[in-house]
């Protein structure tokens, strides 16, 4: 058991792994007929690979890597629209570094920057606000990206810009929500999911009740989990225990950070600034109803789509088909392993990503690639 030596508390890891094995046996999970547990969050995917948890747990437990990496699910059309905005001469386009290499149909933001667009990596939307203050004759656009964890940050930044009466700051809003794609996956007849590991930091904002439908309507257990390896093992055990006892509930393993009802200030800011779009496109999953947020009319002056007439505010249809021969969609829904993609490690590597799952360490393909070498050596 090579990986267990890396645990801060190897003893606790060992006893959790033993309990997982006993419970998996109890429900009759085998390598041939495994229990499928989806970890929704890309941060969890990264941690599972980093610690080799998928190899350490009982062979009857299989992890399915969910759609919870915001960079990975960003469709090509949105990347193209970023570039369209960024190439305007008056614009300073600001983005999290994670988004720089996501391929669009005209290349990535990195390539657009090399062609001369004024694109700057920032750590926070607060940096973008500051750029706008210091640069009154330029239009500063922030690429608002991410799930509920980062949504409050752009909402609060827009509120701040409104208080200051800024006219040269706007957000290109690509915020998406976790529960809706999970419903799509649960409705997919090909999907065989037995339980979920719920995202910790998303839940810190929204609380645990938005997942009630998973337990109540679909009869599947979900356990909101922290990011340390022991958190993940404990959560796997909690999911298996629910299955063994015939229960389907929302449980909170990460209560030290996740309050049942979420963070009230964040939720109020989100509700004030954003409303749901009728639908939003996800890379690999297609259009999903009510899964994306847009800026409310009262903050229209801070909406880059409105300001520059791009994206959902543009007149012409905007779908950009994904390139052929990539298995990103199948990998994202757990129907294929990254290594089964014909491009994995050939055309597609972290240096030259073809699909978005290879871009960020939270993407399943990049995680496979990054830890695959170390794993092969250890086996």
């Amino acid at each position, binding site marked *: 058991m090579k990986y267990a030596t*890396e645990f*801060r508390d190897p003893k606790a890891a060992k006893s959790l792994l033993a309990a997982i094995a006993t419970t998996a046996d109890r429900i009759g999970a085998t390598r041939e007929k495994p229990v499928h547990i989806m970890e929704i*969050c*890309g*941060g969890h995917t*990264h*941690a599972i690979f*980093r*610690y080799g948890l998928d190899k350490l747990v009982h062979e009857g437990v299989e992890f399915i890597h969910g759609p*919870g990496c*915001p*960079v990975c699910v960003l469709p090509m059309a949105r990347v193209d629209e970023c570039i369209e905005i960024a190439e305007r001469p008056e614009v300073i386009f*600001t983005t*999290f*570094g*994670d988004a720089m290499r996501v391929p669009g149909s005209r290349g990535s933001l990195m390539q657009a920057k090399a062609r001369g667009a004024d694109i*700057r*990596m*920032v*750590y*926070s*939307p*607060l*940096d973008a606000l*500051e*750029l706008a203050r*210091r*640069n009154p004759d330029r239009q500063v656009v922030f690429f608002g*990206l*991410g*799930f509920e*964890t*980062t949504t*409050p*940050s752009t909402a*609060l930044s827009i509120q*701040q810009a409104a208080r200051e009466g800024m006219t040269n700051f706007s957000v290109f809003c690509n915020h998406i929500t976790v529960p809706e794609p999970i419903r799509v996956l649960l409705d997919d007849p090909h999907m065989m999911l037995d339980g979920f590991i719920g*995202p910790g*930091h*998303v839940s*810190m*904002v929204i609380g645990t009740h938005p997942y009630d439908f998973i337990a109540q309507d679909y009869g599947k257990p979900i356990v909101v989990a922290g*990011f*340390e*390896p022991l958190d993940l093992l404990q959560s796997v055990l909690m999911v298996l225990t629910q299955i063994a006892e015939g229960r389907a509930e929302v449980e909170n393993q990460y209560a*030290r*950070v996740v309050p049942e009802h979420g*963070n009230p*200030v*964040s939720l109020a*800011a989100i509700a004030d600034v954003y409303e749901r779009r009728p639908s939003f496109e996800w890379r690999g999953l297609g259009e999903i109803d009510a899964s994306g947020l847009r800026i409310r009319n009262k903050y229209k002056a801070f909406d880059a789509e409105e300001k520059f007439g791009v994206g959902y505010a543009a007149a012409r249809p905007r779908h950009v088909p994904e390139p052929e021969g990539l298995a990103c969609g199948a990998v994202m829904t757990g129907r294929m392993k990254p290594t089964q993609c014909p491009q994995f490690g050939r055309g597609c590597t972290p240096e030259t990503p073809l699909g978005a799952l290879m871009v960020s*360490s*939270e993407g399943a393909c990049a995680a496979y690639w990054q830890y695959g070498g170390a794993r092969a050596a250890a086996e």
Partner: protein
Amino acid sequence: MCLGIPGQIVEITNPEAMMAMAEVSGVRREVNVACIADGPLQGLIGEWALIHVGFAMSRIDEAEAAATLEALRDLGEAQEALEQMAEGDRALVGLRKETQV
């Protein structure tokens, strides 16, 4: 981007805008504390919080902060967050240079 990093609030810098100075792994960075404020901001000094993209999102205790930081270091995410902060500073500094010319 999604994991956040623990920081300790060391000073309130702009109460109207809910801004405070946090120390993150030895680096100082101004953060927004609106989401963790539940009384006078001065009460936050010395507190630990999980900081996501410049916003303190959840108060945590010191032991949790240490454990989280260790997990983030394992994942390489701590270094990444610090590099992104430096990148953010550079975006601003770069601008200052440009406007000087």
